[in-house]
């Protein structure tokens, strides 16, 4: 009899193994979506096989008060062990439970294998009880998480100091905490065949344009990546023009920025495991705007915005203007200055294009190196490097003094952009402009600008033209373009995102 059972069990094992091996790629889709059995040991084996006997898979067997065997399965390190020992095992082994309700705050039941595996992978623990096909999923997630800190990339002088963390639920809470609106909708998606990353798509119902929201969700659902390690994966895969150097989806670490954008009718995409949250659709003007613009008085906010625009233009064009003026149009430089500049250049053995390229590449190396260097050394090396190399290059007669000034101003200008992703696009585009300037002077610069403008005009981010509100012209939207109008004059939400609830401030609300 026992032989028969052994044989039966073996056969069952073999069959199970066969079915598992059929799905040789062990991604989530391969887990058979089948119900579990009522035999505890079978179930444990089933799970262990799914995980290929990984050593961090913990199976804790015990007997509950009714005498039945039970087991809790979880992944080591991803769960809060206190939850499991105190609330699950202790309550089940000591108390007289007739119906099963482990004293955990979240409890679900299922009998589907796929869901069980997914829950184990995302840090929940699973409770099997012999003789029951009901499996309890206990929310016991408890890995070490970074606490909410001030964002590193987008610091502001005035404004909230909290930034997103790597934990999705915390991030969602940070948004909810600021936006106590029941119309805030969250759509949960799971992306990445292997990483099984949780993604939240958020929008405010009644403000955001539903087709845009649907389009965002559709594009994310259609993603066929096996791994989402950062929002950058999603950003690059779902943007309209994948070959464009310009970011068409904004990212931020700041919850207040997300809330402000949600209120403008945009969609936020939160991804588990990264503090960077995406905002779609995005338009070009967003990349030089900072949340601080809205916190400070509008005069200074507008002024600072202007300065940012100018600094972006400087970062893009200054070296190429230098090349154009010094190699092609010296008649445009005042006579006195031109003699001084010629004097500075007289020892330089290269054309100004090579000189500029040389210096710009040097400064890019410095910048990259100072990012990679450990904490406090980085900026020091940056400054020392720039000073020493610049000074030495000038006295060696390799570059002209004007060039050093130009490179310095350009570099500083590129830091003034509040959005890193836009700043690096500008940094990169600087090189082709310099090249064009070296070919045709100012004419070349203008050719490049026109090509760039044509390209910018052709971009749409989720159906919203990238250059709005300048083109197509929207005078109401211009109030928040270069100038930041006072709040009481911006009663309407920007219409370019086709918001539904257009009114931001009711007439009778203002005093």
């Amino acid at each position: 009899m026992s032989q028969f059972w052994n044989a039966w069990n073996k056969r069952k094992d073999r069959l199970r193994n066969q079915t598992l091996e059929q799905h040789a790629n062990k991604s989530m889709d391969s887990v058979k979506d089948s119900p579990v059995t009522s035999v505890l040991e079978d179930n444990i084996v089933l799970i262990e096989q799914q995980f290929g006997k990984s050593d961090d898979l913990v199976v804790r067997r015990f007997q509950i008060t009714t005498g039945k065997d039970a087991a809790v399965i979880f992944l080591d390190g991803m769960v809060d062990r206190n939850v499991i020992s105190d609330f699950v095992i202790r309550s089940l082994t000591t108390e007289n439970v007739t119906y099963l309700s482990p004293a955990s705050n979240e409890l679900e039941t299922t009998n589907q294998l796929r869901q069980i595996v997914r829950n184990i992978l995302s840090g929940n623990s699973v409770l099997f009880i012999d003789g029951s096909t009901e499996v309890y999923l206990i929310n016991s997630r408890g890995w070490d998480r970074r606490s909410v800190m001030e964002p590193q990339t987008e610091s502001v002088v005035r404004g909230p100091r909290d930034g997103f963390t790597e934990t999705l639920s915390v991030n969602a809470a940070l948004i909810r905490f600021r936006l106590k609106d029941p119309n805030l909708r969250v759509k949960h998606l799971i992306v990445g065949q292997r990483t099984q990353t949780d993604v939240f798509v958020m929008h405010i119902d009644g403000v955001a344009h539903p087709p845009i929201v649907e389009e965002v969700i559709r594009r994310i659902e259609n993603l066929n990546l096996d791994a989402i390690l950062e929002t950058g994966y999603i950003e690059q895969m779902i943007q309209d023009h994948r070959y464009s150097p310009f970011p068409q989806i904004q990212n931020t670490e700041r919850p207040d920025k997300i809330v402000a954008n949600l209120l403008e009718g945009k969609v936020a995409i939160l991804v588990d495991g990264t503090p960077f949250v995406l905002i779609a659709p995005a338009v070009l003007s967003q990349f030089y705007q900072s949340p601080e613009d809205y916190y400070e008085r509008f005069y200074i906010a507008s002024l600072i915005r202007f300065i940012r625009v100018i600094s972006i233009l400087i970062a893009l064009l200054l070296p190429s203007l230098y090349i154009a003026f010094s190699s092609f149009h010296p008649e445009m430089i005042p006579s006195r200055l031109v003699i001084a500049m010629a004097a500075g250049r007289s020892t330089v053995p290269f054309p100004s294009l090579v000189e500029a390229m040389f210096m710009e590449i040097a400064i890019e190396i410095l910048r990259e190196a100072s990012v990679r260097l450990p904490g406090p050394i980085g900026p020091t090396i940056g400054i020392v490097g720039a000073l020493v190399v610049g000074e030495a290059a000038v006295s060696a007669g390799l570059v002209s003094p004007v060039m050093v000034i130009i490179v310095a101003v350009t570099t500083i200008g590129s830091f003034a952009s509040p959005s890193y992703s836009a700043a690096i696009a500008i940094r990169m585009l600087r090189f082709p402009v310099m090249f064009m300037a070296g070919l045709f002077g100012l004419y070349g610069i203008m050719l490049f600008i026109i090509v760039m403008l044509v390209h910018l005009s052709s971009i749409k981010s989720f159906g919203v033209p990238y250059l709005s509100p300048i083109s197509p012209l929207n005078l109401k939207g211009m109030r928040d373009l270069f100038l930041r109008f006072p709040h009481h004059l911006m009663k309407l939400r920007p219409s370019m995102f086709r918001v539904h609830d257009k009114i931001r401030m009711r007439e009778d609300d203002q005093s």
Partner: protein
Amino acid sequence: MDKRWSYLCLLLLCLSFLAGCWDRRELEERASVLAIAIDAGGEDEERYRVTVQIPIPIKIAGSSGQGGGGNSNAVKVMSVTGRTITDATNNLQLRLNQRLFLGHTRVVAISEEIAREGIEDILDGFRREALIRRLLWPIIVRGKASSLLEIKPQLAQIPVVFIMDLVENGRKMGTIPDKTLGDYLNETSNKSMQPFLNYVEATKREVKWIGTAIFHDHKMVGSLTPIQTWSLMQLRNQKRGGDVIMPLAGQEDAYVTLRPRFVDTNLTIQPNKFKGGGLEAVFSCEVQGDIMEYVPGNIRFASPEKFIEAMQKELKQEMEKRARQMIQKLQKHNSDVLKLGLHLRSYHFHDYWVHHDWNKAFKDFPIRVEYTIKLRRLGMEMEQ
């Protein structure tokens, strides 16, 4: 569609390799000519002698810490001859390591000798050359034009910069007329007026503004002294001109100085009352200004009001006299630099212009000048 960008980049890359940067010429690879001087060629030489001034960047103080000091040779002055101006510059190019660059030419000095022969031929090349500024200053030099480029002013490293500053400062003060090449070209093209240019004299170390040269049909026909030029500027451009230093009537070494602050001129054409028939031009010029100096101060007036009244009267007569002298000179040389002809053509076209040949009529056209002097202040001094 997605490959669009890569194709474009590829295309640009190919283009750049094909290209080779036709117009790229670095700053230091251009021999920037700051000033050109044009003289008549010598006895056995070709028609023009062209002298240019090229700064030597490395010698200019303040440039990368080196050089400086000896400003004696901060510029190179070179001189060539040629049948035409362009011929001369081509000859010059044969002697230079870098290409001549005329984009920074600020001063064209023309000798009086050449100017009296006519400068139309000289300016033709300047007219066609794209790099030449319309805002450069043609200057007529008494004596040799090249002497202007050889001065050593010491106040500025580059002599041309000194001249530029001289003219620029005079323009700002309202004492030197701002006559650019563009103005000259406009005025010669215009059939109703004649041009004038600044007139300077260069000594070994210095340069001095000595008034203006007046032209008729591209030929210099005469010159105005600084005082006459100031009258001209007051009537023509409503510029204030220089200080008016007037000897007081009936006294030795007694002078009063008026500094004009504000000039307002109106030109009216009215039927001639005196000679009967025809028209006459009346310049009514109101000058507001201050008394800057009054020497000797021993003549006392009864009251400041009396003083002002008397001075206004005397100054009016003096300035009208000056203007009359200036106009007489213009009419003698038949050079309408007053823009009177333009006024007649613009506002009296049908009743006057079509019936007369201004070229001949200007000589005898009756012109009257009426000054109104308004003294505003007496300086820091309150007593007369």
